[in-house]
Every structure is written in C-alpha cells, then in structure tokens.
C-alpha cells in the first residue's frame, strides 16, 4: 500500500516542475460570508481557485470534527469565515465560534499543523472584495508552507516511528519551504 506513496510531497520545492497548488476548505456563514462570496462572483472579483466553500447557517455551527475531517481528507488548510463580532445574524453565536476557533487552533498546532493552515476571516455580506483578498492572501500563505504532509507519516507507521516521540514537526521539514514567487498568486 505504501509503495505507491508520493513521498515527494515532502520535498516539493525540489520538484519545481509543477508548482504546488494547495486545496483549501472554507466554511462560510449563510448570512454574511457566503453572500460576500456571491457578491465577489456577481462583481467578477477574481481569487485563486484553490478555495472550496461549504455553506453553514452560522460559523458557530463549525464542529471541530469538520476541520479535522477536512485535513484528514486532503485539505492543506481550512478557513473559517463569518460575521464580524457584533454583526452576528444569531446575535452572539459567532463569538462562540471564535472561542472554539482559538481552542482548536491550539490543538492543531500541538498536532503539528501550522497556525497558518487554520485561519479565520470576517466578511460581511457587503465585503466581497475583502473576502476575495483574504482568500488570495491565504492561498499565498499556504502555497508558501507547502503541502500538509502528515498523511505520509500516518500512512507509513515505520517512517512515523523514526520521529522523536515529542517532536511535533516531522524531522527535516523546513520551517517554511522556499516559497514560490508570490507574484503568481493573483494570476
């Protein structure tokens, strides 16, 4: 099973032929950020196609399990988008989402997932441009980080066993692999 593993993912900077294109799952709130995404569309504002959106009724619906599931299923990053703190359609539920976000981000960091892979964006229904800008920025961030390669360790217990017990970062993983030129991001 592991024989077919594309271990090259770990050393992607050397594989310069195909630039790494991350896939990012974005959770949106039905009342604000989803409509901001609609607005970005209506206004033909461009952002990279790496972000794929899921509509929730509220950012407060975001179960941490959804985030873990997205990472497990191959996402390189997850974005939680929602209303500005005092503009929640459900009064205060986005604040509850924020609490959960902070906690989950800490847990993810402990699991070796860089904070940049789990980001939060506020966007009101009128902020299509801001949402598109945020997506563009996050795609650039994650492209610079490279692929999330924990699945390699998980898939290959032998390789994982080589890791130091308390070392969260897989050995040899650079802090940030040499980022491709950011100029290509908005193309």
């Amino acid at each position, binding site marked *: 099973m592991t024989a077919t593993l594309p271990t090259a993912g770990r050393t992607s900077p050397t594989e310069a032929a195909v630039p790494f294109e991350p896939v990012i799952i974005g959770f949106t709130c039905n009342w604000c950020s989803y409509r901001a995404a609609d607005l970005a569309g209506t206004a033909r*504002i*461009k952002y990279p*196609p790496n972000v794929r959106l899921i509509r929730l009724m509220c950012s407060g619906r975001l179960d941490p399990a959804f985030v873990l599931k997205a990472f497990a299923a*191959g*996402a390189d990053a997850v974005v939680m988008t929602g209303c500005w703190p005092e*503009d929640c359609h*459900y009064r205060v539920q986005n604040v509850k989402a924020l609490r959960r976000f902070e906690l989950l981000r800490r847990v993810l960091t402990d699991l070796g997932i860089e904070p940049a892979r789990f980001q939060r964006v506020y966007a009101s229904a009128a902020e299509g441009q801001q949402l598109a800008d945020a997506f563009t920025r996050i795609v650039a961030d994650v492209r610079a980080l490279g692929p999330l390669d924990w699945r390699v360790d*998980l898939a290959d217990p032998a390789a994982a066993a080589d890791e130091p017990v308390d070392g969260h970062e897989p050995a040899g993983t650079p802090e940030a692999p040499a980022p491709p030129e950011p100029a290509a991001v908005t193309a």
Partner: protein
Amino acid sequence: MTGPRVGVYVCHCGTNIAGVVDVAAVRDWALERLGPHGVVVARDYPFMCSSLGQELIEKDIAELGLDRVVVAACSPHMHERTFRGACGRAGLNPYLCELVSIREQVSWVHTDRDAATRKAEAVVAGGVLRVREQVPLEPLRVPIAPATLVIGGGIAGISAALELADAGYPVHLVERQPSIGGHMAQFDKTFPTLDCAACILTPRMVDAGMHPNITLHTWSEVVDVSGHVGAFSVRILHRPRYVDTDLCTGCGICEEKCPAKVVDPVFESGIGYRKGIYRPFPQAVPKYPVLDPEHCIYFERGTCRACEKLCPTGAIDFEQQPEEVTVEVGNIVLATGFEPFDARRVEAYGYGRYPNVFTSLEFERMSNAAGPTGGRIVLRDGQTEPRSVAIVHCVGSRDRNFNPYCSAICCMQSLKVAHLVREHTEATVYELYIDMRTPGKGFDEFYQRVQDEGTHLIRGRVAEITDVLRLPDEAGEDGRLIVQVEDTLAGRQRRIPVDMVVLSVGLEPPSDAREMARRLGITCSSDGWVIERHPKLDPVATMTDGVFAAGCALGPRDIPSSVANGAAAAARILGRISQGELALEPIRASVDEARCSGCRICNDLCPFGAISFERGRGTEVDPALCQGCGVCIAACPAGAISGTGFSDAQILAQIEGLLFPGTIHPEAGLDAVVAGSATTPEPEAVPA
C-alpha cells in the same frame, strides 16, 4: 431500489458558466466518477432555470426514478426555490434537491479553465455526497402575529403604516422625535413639481395619527427586538414628555408662556428657536408638546413651573419617568431614514467659520413660510437679502475623503434652491456642480427651466470658499465670500464673489444605523445603508426574514421612491399576514433523548432560549424558537443534537466530496491513501 438515485444537472448559464467551466467535462466526470455514489444520470443544459430545463429534471424524476437531484448552477440564494419547485412538482420532496454554485463561486471568480473545471467537479461531488445524506423535510408552519412594527415616522414609515392599517391590521409606529413627519416636514417645496411639502405631508400625518389601527410611539426608541418572523417581541422605550397626554389638549399655552428659549438644532436645523416645552412645528402629530429637561428652567434651577401653573387641564407632570412597553409583532419595517452630512467636515468650505455659508437643510427652513424667517431668504444677520448666491453640489458625496456614493437627491434639490432664490430675491445664482444628474419624471425639464430662469451653471468641483481677497479685481469685495472653482467647460479657474453659499449636503445613514441593524439581525453595507435581500428583485426585504426596509434606510432616494418603498414593504407583509401562518425553512435542531446525558451545555449556548431541560423529561428544543444556527449541535459532547438541513453527516459528506480524489493535488487524501477503496471507487468498476 438500492441506495439513492441521483441526477446531476450542469447549467451553462449561457456563457456565464460555460465560458469558463468545461460543462461537458463536468457532466461526464460526474457520471463516471460519481456513478458509484449513486449518480445515474448527468446532463448539461444551456439554462437550467428555464421551464425546459426544469422539465428536464421533472421528466428524469418520473422516468428514471431519481430520488435525489443536484443542480450545478448559480447561488442557492438565486434559484434554490426554482429547482426545489421543479422537484416538488415531480413528486420528489423539495429538500432532496441540492443547488451547488459553480457560477458565483467558480466561473465568475476564476479564469483558468482547467482549474475552474476541476473545482466545479469537486463542487458537484460535494453536492452529490451531501444530498445523499439529506432526508425529506416539511416546512415548519408557524402562526404569524397580525401586528407590524414600523421604525421611523418619516414619509416612508408613514406610508408603510397607512397601507397596513388601511388593510385592517394593527401597526406600531415608533418615532424618536416628538412628532412624526421626518425630514420631509422640514422642507419647503418638493422637486420638481414645487408642491408645498407640508401641504402634501400633513394630511398623511394626520391620517396616521387618527387611524384606529395605528399606535404612535413618538419620543420613543426601540431598545430590544427578540423572536423571529411571525413572532417578534419588541421593547419600546417611551421617553418622558413631562406632559400627561390623557389630559393635554394641545392648546399650546405652555409653549407660549415658557420663558426658556433655545436654538432648535433638530427641526429648525439650528437657524431658529424653540421653547423649553415645545412642539417642533404647528402641525405636529401627535399634538402634545415635549418638555426638554436640559433647557427647562425648573429642571435647571428648581423654580419656574410656569407651564404647570398655566396649563388649563393640569397636564404637566414633572415626575414622569421613562416607560417601557413590549409589543408583539409579526413583521418589522425599518424606515429610519438618513442624517444630513455634517458640512463642518469639509473644512475648505468654511461651514461654521463663515456665517453666510449655509447647508441645504438650513436653506429649506429659511425658505419655508412657517420657518424662522417667515420665508425670507436672508444672510445670517437675519435682515440683508443676498445679491448673489452660490450653490455647491456634492458636499460630502462623490468624494473619497467622505462618501464615495452619489446622494441622488442633491442635484434636483440644488436646482430647486436656485429656483427658490430667484423667486424670493433678485440675487444672481451660481450652481457649481460636478455632473448634473436629473433622471426622473419631469426632472430634466425642471433643470431646463432653472437654466432658462438665468441661473449660472458652472461645471466644476469647488476647491475652496474663503473671505480672503487675493486678486486685484477683488478689491471692494470686503466681507463677501469668494468661491474658488475650476470651470471645467471654460477651462479656467474662477473666483466668484458671492454674499451667500448654500452647501448641498449629502445623505448619510443615521449615526446609530449599525446598532439598529444589529438589534434586528440585519446587515449594512460599508457605507452603513441596509443591504437588500436582492438589490433588484427583492429591494425592500432584508436578509432577516420578517424584517423589511423602506426609504433612505436603504440608501439615498427621493420622496416618491420612499413612498413606493413603504407601500412595497407593506404589500410584502400583507401577503404574509393574510395567510394567517408562515412556512419556515425546516432548519432546526433536535435532541436524541437516548444519547443526551443531561449535561446542559447546550442550554446556555442558545441565545433564543429554545433549549430547555427538565429533570425527568430531558432536553427539548422548541422548534418555534430555534433559529437553526447549529451552535448547540457542534457543542454537544454526546452528539445527541442533530440539525435538519445541515446535519453532521451532510457536512462531513460534502467535505469528502469537495476533496474528491482527482480534484485535488496528486497526493489525494488520507482516506484515499490509507483506506484505499473506502472512498475511491475503482475506475474499472464504473458502470457505463
């Protein structure tokens, strides 16, 4: 039949989608790769929303026995109802239809055809996997309270209130000022017909005041709104008038005898006076005066009470306290209007520094026969008639430093000012404009008329208004104002000496517009105007069901539009009230008793009080109070709460679909790598 049978329909939307996304490839991909997930048919069609497109779905449901439908087209906020309707007509539960957006979220925001097509495939996969987990739902039927709350007693609010009340339903009309009427009551004439504003407004005000179905809450504020469409509970604060309205006859003796005289910054725009106890204007509705404790001699020094001594009915009550009432309404109309732009912010125009720089609202009061000057156009000294007047357009509007938008009414209003100055005085009038915007019935004709009357129209944005004389030919202009402007048609700078300047100030949302929006759970644009549910097709509804908006709360507009908005909001509401009950989206939480441990974590998370716990009975969600946000579902440690429409199973499935193997970078997903065949179908196994 084993497993769901899903039909996938990919819309071209003309070239809106097909121009960027390879729709045929998405169709083929869906049939091939999602076949193992129940897709039995995949089609593409130029316009799925057309009746032919919808019939395609209906026919397949009937002939192929589809029990799930995924339409890949525009945003669900656009056509979800359309396709649910098609499914419903074919006998399929409408909620078993999923509309995924490959237009707003793919073709309109991306340019790379390959990447966009791959994303569209992933979005379709997300929809297919998600709809498989969907269960048939029925809309929730809830009773609707017949009463309506109208916030704001300007012409938009009055119009909405009258339409609703005339149809036989109760209305609570809340106004923060002592009288209804709004800004329109301050105006002199209305463009382009030059109707007297008061003459056409006050009969409406009286109608609203006398109507048996309208309860006026003037000098009041909406402090809290809870509940939801059909059953809002609204707390209204009545500020003390210090006048017992049951006893007051509105005779006006108190106002006449009150020794305190203060500048009226509200109704008279600061160019006139009122008393310590006052009615803002003679035709005020209701007729009862308001005592202003900040300027009342008794409240300041402890003696006076002249009004109390002289009131023939003993209606003055210095002990009155604020009072709160709660009303139950089914719908809300927000008609809070606008505030004029504060001209002091444009320092170069000298408002507040030069006495003879006026705002357009000050001019309205001055020109009004019932205003402080009795309709005479005079300089700040109250006596001298101006020999020349400059009217400056776009003050605070179309200006990146202040507001980027056009305030819509100022061109016509400025032309009206020019006409009125010419009518009342001998003055030379200059209009200084950027662009003249006169789109409306009779508007351009009025513009022509004002030109024919001899008004000088100069195209250019005013750079500065000053009293400093700089050029030799300005000698002898002492005390006058110089308007510096580039005349862009003549191609030269001009310095025009005038006696009076009228600044046509733009319209801004009320300073507390965002606070009010928050209270109602609606959203404002970055400028602060209320966002419509759809800017074109649903222009008076908001994102929150049961909350409508009318008039300038939505953005700058003139009187006829505000009246039409008010009536439109009323018509929308009447359509609902007359049905007696509402069909709500069945997106609700429910508790599985068997899994609930009774920890009560969810209870405190619900801001709507929808979750209750009782020993012996367990945890219950009241579907009438639940708004479907889903916070409790995510929080329940036992996984005992589930949410219809957005269940864990649906969302987890959609995540899997969005990351479907083949649509992401070659490493695929963990599941694909570790679990192998669990989610990745063998390509050979795909049925043709």
